[in-house]
């Protein structure tokens, strides 16, 4: 099987600060891959490049074998560019889709600091994620021209909530849920966009060990059930080692190691740069 996602020489530079430096990685289809690294290593920035929140300064991102993001430094950015390979993509067209276009292609994500729609109920939170695939125009929506479509969206949402065990909360405000359920709701919302690739940004942050174990099972379950590829950022070493098929480690924006969990666990660089910090994080 091919790669669901492939990053090639991705560099993200803010002014003089290089957040992601020449990052290349592969996320094979139907696998669970993790991206780890200490705080400020550039993990979330890498996610933001993939999901279109940021436009990388240089590099190429492919999804399902097709290039979706491509850029090379120009103008002011070219002068201050500190990364490598700035000429590699010079002659190719710049691709810079907006986040919603990327979601439309089949990549969905969750956020490090949960971003649910606060004034809306659990049901609505998931229902809105169905909006982009709805077959209706403003007119048909206003004049209720396509009630079947609306019903289909509602039914699918309900089914999804039932699967996630969130149906009993459906009319409650999303923010009133306990923390763990909010995380789960965010994942459910992401699933509602019918993704092929799911990006999880620190799904276990703030969870206790018991919840973390549950989460690991949950991630495996949904991966299987929805036939997904999962790419996640995590601090919890237990979780990462437990569920990942393959791990990339970055620090200061650059890759320092990669491999299957056992390899990474014993890697000298990783222990130096990372594990100490991770333990501190766990001790918190």
């Amino acid at each position, binding site marked *: 099987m091919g790669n669901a996602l492939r990053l090639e020489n991705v560099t993200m530079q803010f002014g003089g600060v290089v957040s992601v430096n020449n990052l290349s990685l592969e996320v094979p289809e139907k696998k669970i891959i993790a991206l780890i690294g200490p705080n400020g290593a550039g993990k979330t920035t890498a996610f933001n490049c993939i999901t279109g929140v940021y436009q990388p300064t240089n590099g190429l991102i492919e999804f399902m074998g097709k290039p979706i993001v491509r850029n090379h430094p120009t103008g002011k950015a070219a002068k201050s560019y500190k990364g490598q390979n700035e000429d590699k993509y010079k002659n190719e067209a710049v691709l810079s889709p907006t986040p919603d276009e990327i979601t439309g292609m089949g990549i969905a994500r969750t956020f490090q600091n949960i971003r649910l729609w*606060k*004034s809306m109920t659990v049901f*609505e939170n998931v229902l809105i*994620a169905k909006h982009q695939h709805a077959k209706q125009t403003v007119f048909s929506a*206003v004049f209720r021209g396509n009630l079947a479509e*609306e019903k289909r969206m509602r039914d699918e949402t309900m089914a999804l909530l039932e699967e996630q065990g969130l149906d009993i909360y459906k009319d409650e405000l999303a923010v009133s849920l306990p923390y763990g359920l909010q995380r789960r709701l965010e994942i459910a919302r992401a699933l509602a966009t019918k993704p092929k690739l799911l990006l999880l940004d620190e799904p276990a942050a703030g969870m206790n060990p018991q919840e973390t174990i549950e989460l690991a099972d949950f991630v495996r379950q949904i991966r299987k059930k929805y036939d997904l590829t999962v790419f996640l950022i995590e601090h919890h070493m237990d979780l990462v080692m437990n569920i990942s098929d393959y791990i990339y480690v970055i620090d200061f924006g650059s890759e320092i190691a990669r491999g299957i969990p056992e390899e990474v666990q014993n890697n000298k660089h990783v222990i130096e740069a990372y594990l100490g910090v991770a333990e501190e994080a766990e001790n918190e």
Partner: protein
Amino acid sequence: MKQKKKSFSAVIGISVLLLFVILLENISALIPGLPQVFQPTSPLFTVLKKAAVYSLVAVSMNLLNGFTGLFSLGQAGFMLLGAYTYAILMVPADQKEQVYYLFGGCAFDSSLMDVLGKLFGTSGAGGAVSMILSCLIALILAGCVAGVFAYLIGIPVLRLKSDYLAIATLGFAEILRAIFQWQKLGKVTNGANMIKGFPTFSSFNITNSSGQIVLRLSTFVPFLIVSLCIVLIVLLINSSYGRAFKSVRDDEVAAEAMGINLFRHKMLSFVISSFFAGVGGALFAMYVANAQAKAFTSVMTYEILLIVVIGGIGSVSGSVLATFLYVACSEWWLRFLDSEQYIGGFKVPLLRNGFRMVIFSIVIMVIVLFFSQGIMGSNEINIGALLNRFKKKERKQ
């Protein structure tokens, strides 16, 4: 099931309201000797008409500010576009010479009504048809012109964030006003002069052959049009698109990540809101019986914004309720503060011209500071629920 019941009771509620308005308007003809308030010339009806018009504009602003979270202050500008579109299209050909007296006539020498008049006739039932039809077409066109301009303006400004968007839209409204007042465009806009002579709400009163009014519809018509528009806005808000607007308001980043095209949805909301502001502007022109750019200042936008806030940002029924209270207070109930009053032999101090507006602005400040949620918060009046409550009470008794 629940949804159906809700919409059913809403339809009933609105029909009852409209019937009530017709009745109220004609009650003085049915029962003689009623107090002055019920006479057709009483301020009650003026206030009702103005409030109806303003409530549409307030709801349209709420759609943008309250439901989509776009802080726009361009409402007066879009009203201006609507008012002028309606006015320019509707001034009858034989009045143009008089109205555009400074410019020796208008650039267009015919009007919508004249065109339709040729089709349906100009008197009797044919005249009525051509009048009503041309009014409707002009209203829709008024909205469309405002909508198209909103689209053009939106391309650059909708990328701006909160306050910047507010100040940019405010600026656009001011620019529009300056353009419409420009004497060089006088052949079209009548420059600084007002355009008048077009059909107003009173034109909808049904008269008999000797010119006497048989059935008054001058308050009913704005109510009808406005309720229709507000129903459409509510339907939009409760549709998939409305939910998408709300998600943009709550969290843009999350909305975008969930596949909602920010720009497209903001633009949609902006254009739709402006469309209804344009219709509102045309109705406003019908209410004041003229169109003049001078009226559409930023003060007007602020007034509407205050109404939205008083009613509750994110509540349609709140906006409507607040409009009626606001207009009635500022234009009717508080007027006594403007003239000297005596209680017994005692002259109440401070009361003189201008005092009304001072009190009024203090009231507004109190509401903004202490009831920052407004009258309704983000809740809606639910007619069905109200009815149920009544039923329960009855049962208890």
